[in-house]
């Protein structure tokens, strides 16, 4: 076997040896990483790389080692975003050992990456994961032969159920003892252009130690697919199960917010207010209604978002989400998205924030951005509260219910049409082929779901805390200053008045304009703002009567349309920024939603006026 030394060079030994995990997506690589690092990993930011990944330091025999989990990729030589990140990492950071994790039941094609690592001349330990599926499929692998052919230690594990992991981890430590150097690659893509791992190379290795089962077996997944992917009942089953998910988020996820709200209220009354009593009134008022309110609002989101991720992770792990993408692909193609985009849009009806985070599963960057751009138009549960209140005033009774249903339709149609337009513009044209794996159905384990949700939630709070706090501080300032001002005399009120030329054509008065500005922080506070501006209790009958007297249906519905389509909330904006790391895109997204909201509300208000006056 030729080892081209040009691709990797020996470096001075790292003080802290670095162990790098690589492998294809959906191989259980990250699950194994969590097992090795005992779930102590945190997200780390590497200079020069656009993607964060997990990293952990572990001690063994009084020495510290660093473990890094690189993104799952199909091919070391490719040029998708993730593949470039992995190449860049291996080219810029010295490392000591590669741990390659593959789904052993698909060893006939997954053998590619171990061969590529071997060709680069890098020290590697190979993990044959999914031992349980290997057995079920009847794949036979002679690990001893394989290890000799590849010249690297090979271990059979089941990261999901833990079997074989103790031995495998010991194998990593043992291998590390034998390595005296650190390594670094140079121009991996170029190296493989002249040293490609061919079909023949893969077949050679598999011929020696691997026996694949017959191509004609009917597995349990095949039988399940014949119902769930059936041409007639497949789609209805999908819609019913999505409805069930949505109802679960509605009836379980949303009520979870109340106890957190009660807790933060209680904490404020019992601990924060008393402990700030030595401060001047204005200052303690600022802390409570500025930074603390922002933090409390973020915390209030946590149970809902966490619950959402529990459902999402379980669905993803079960293999059904890939099937949903298969079922819905044809419709979404018209908008330049694929089936996955539909699932995310649907989840956006629960809450936009986790749906935007969920776009990580989309591998093409342009397509992911397009999804992120349209998710904020999904009518989330927070906006629903605003509509239930306003529709109750302008359209009492059953008609209001229909109007609400209409808003849901408008929400999806606007998102879909916008995606179509942006797709036609070419800017967000997907460069990714639509080929996705349909893994066998799997039972999600509690451990896997819990680990994933925990890591998502810590990222969520850490990334967003600062945004929420700054946002509520600004709102507090705008609604309380200049000193002694109230209502329309505050800066917020003045801004409302300032925007009148823009908002009057939509039938939205200055008081409601202010509520929209405050609603930018969170839709939950938008109703509170309406109450404050009118000087009446939130949700009180007096407020309803007053509004009913001053707001016509035409004005009220225009207000609802604007609320539906403009920037959903600060948390969403912060998430867009956190996920894209692009201020330009974030500003673009905010601008698009403002323009769309204005145009739609304007169109409705003016045409209604023309027709019925």
């Amino acid at each position, binding site marked *: 076997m030729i080892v081209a030394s040009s691709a990797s060079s020996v470096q001075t030994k790292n003080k802290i040896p670095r162990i790098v995990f690589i492998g294809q997506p959906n191989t259980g690589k990250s699950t194994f990483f969590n097992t090795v690092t005992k779930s102590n990993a945190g997200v780390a930011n590497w200079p020069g790389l656009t993607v964060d990944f997990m990293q952990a330091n572990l001690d063994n025999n009084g020495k510290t080692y660093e473990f890094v989990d690189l993104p799952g990729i199909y091919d070391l030589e490719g040029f998708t975003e993730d593949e470039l990140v992995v190449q860049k990492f291996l080219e810029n950071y010295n490392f000591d050992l590669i741990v390659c994790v593959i789904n052993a039941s698909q060893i006939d094609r997954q053998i590619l990456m171990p061969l590529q690592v071997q060709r680069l001349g890098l020290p590697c330990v190979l993990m044959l994961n999914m031992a349980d599926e290997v057995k079920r499929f009847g794949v036979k692998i002679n690990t001893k032969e394989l290890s000799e052919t590849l010249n690297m230690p090979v271990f059979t594990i089941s990261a999901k159920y833990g079997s074989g992991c103790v031995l495998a981890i010991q194998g990593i430590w043992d291998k590390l003892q034998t390595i005296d150097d650190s390594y670094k690659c140079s121009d991996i893509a170029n190296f493989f252009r002249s040293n490609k791992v061919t079909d023949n190379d893969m077949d050679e290795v598999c011929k020696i130690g691997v026996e694949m089962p017959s191509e004609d077996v009917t597995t349990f997944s095949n039988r399940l697919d014949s119902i769930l992917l059936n041409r007639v009942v497949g789609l209805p089953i999908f819609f019913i199960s999505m409805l069930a998910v949505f109802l679960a988020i509605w009836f379980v996820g949303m009520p979870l917010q109340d106890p957190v709200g009660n807790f933060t209220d209680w904490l404020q009354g019992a601990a924060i207010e008393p402990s700030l009593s030595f401060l001047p009134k204005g200052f303690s008022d600022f802390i409570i209604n500025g930074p603390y309110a922002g933090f409390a609002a973020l915390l209030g989101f946590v149970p809902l978002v966490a619950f959402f991720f529990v459902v999402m992770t379980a669905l993803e792990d079960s293999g059904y989400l890939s099937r949903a993408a298969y079922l819905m692909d044809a419709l979404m193609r018209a908008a330049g998205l694929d089936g996955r985009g539909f699932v995310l849009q649907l989840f956006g009806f629960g809450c936009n924030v986790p749906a935007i985070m969920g776009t990580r599963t989309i591998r093409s960057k342009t397509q992911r951005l397009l999804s992120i751009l349209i998710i904020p138009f999904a009518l989330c549960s927070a906006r629903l509260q605003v509509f239930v209140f306003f529709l109750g005033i302008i359209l009492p009774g059953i008609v209001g219910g229909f109007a609400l249903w209409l808003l849901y339709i408008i929400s999806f149609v606007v998102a879909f049409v916008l995606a179509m337009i942006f797709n036609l513009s070419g800017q967000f044209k997907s*460069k990714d082929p639509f080929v996705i794996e349909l893994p066998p159905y799997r039972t999600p384990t509690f451990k896997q779901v819990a680990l994933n949700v925990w890591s998502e939630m810590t990222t969520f709070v850490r990334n967003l805390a600062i945004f929420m706090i700054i946002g509520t501080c600004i709102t507090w300032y705008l609604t309380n200053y200049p000193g002694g001002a109230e209502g329309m005399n505050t800066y917020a009120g003045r801004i409302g008045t300032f925007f009148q030329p823009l908002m009057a054509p939509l039938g939205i008065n200055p008081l409601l304009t202010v509520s929209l500005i405050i609603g930018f922080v969170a839709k939950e506070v938008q109703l509170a703002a309406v109450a404050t501006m009118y000087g009446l209790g939130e949700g009180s009958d007096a407020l309803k009567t007053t509004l009913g007297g001053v707001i016509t249906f035409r004005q009220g519905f225009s207000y609802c349309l604007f609320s539906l389509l403009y920037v959903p909330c600060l948390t969403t904006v912060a998430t867009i920024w956190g996920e894209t790391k692009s201020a330009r895109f974030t500003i673009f997204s905010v601008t698009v939603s403002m323009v769309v909201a204005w145009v739609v509300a304007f169109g409705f208000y003016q045409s209604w006026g023309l027709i019925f006056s």
Partner: protein
Amino acid sequence: MTTQLTLSDLDVSDGTAMVVDVVSDGSQIGDGFRDRLIAMGLRKGKTVKVLRKAPAGDPYQVRVGSTTEIAIRKTEAKLVLISKS
């Protein structure tokens, strides 16, 4: 002279076929497509079998070899040249 069959021509009733080649238009993106398809297991000598087609007739659910199943759009399936057994 028959035209070259591709995976997009394959029907559920046709059973198993053999991959002959995976083509690219020669562009970098085209090469990237091909490499992705190959990484998914669609390489020369492997068997493919269309298990079913989505309600709209596209994409296809395809078994590659014995243990890999994928969803692939017709447009991408056209890049996979096959021969019926």
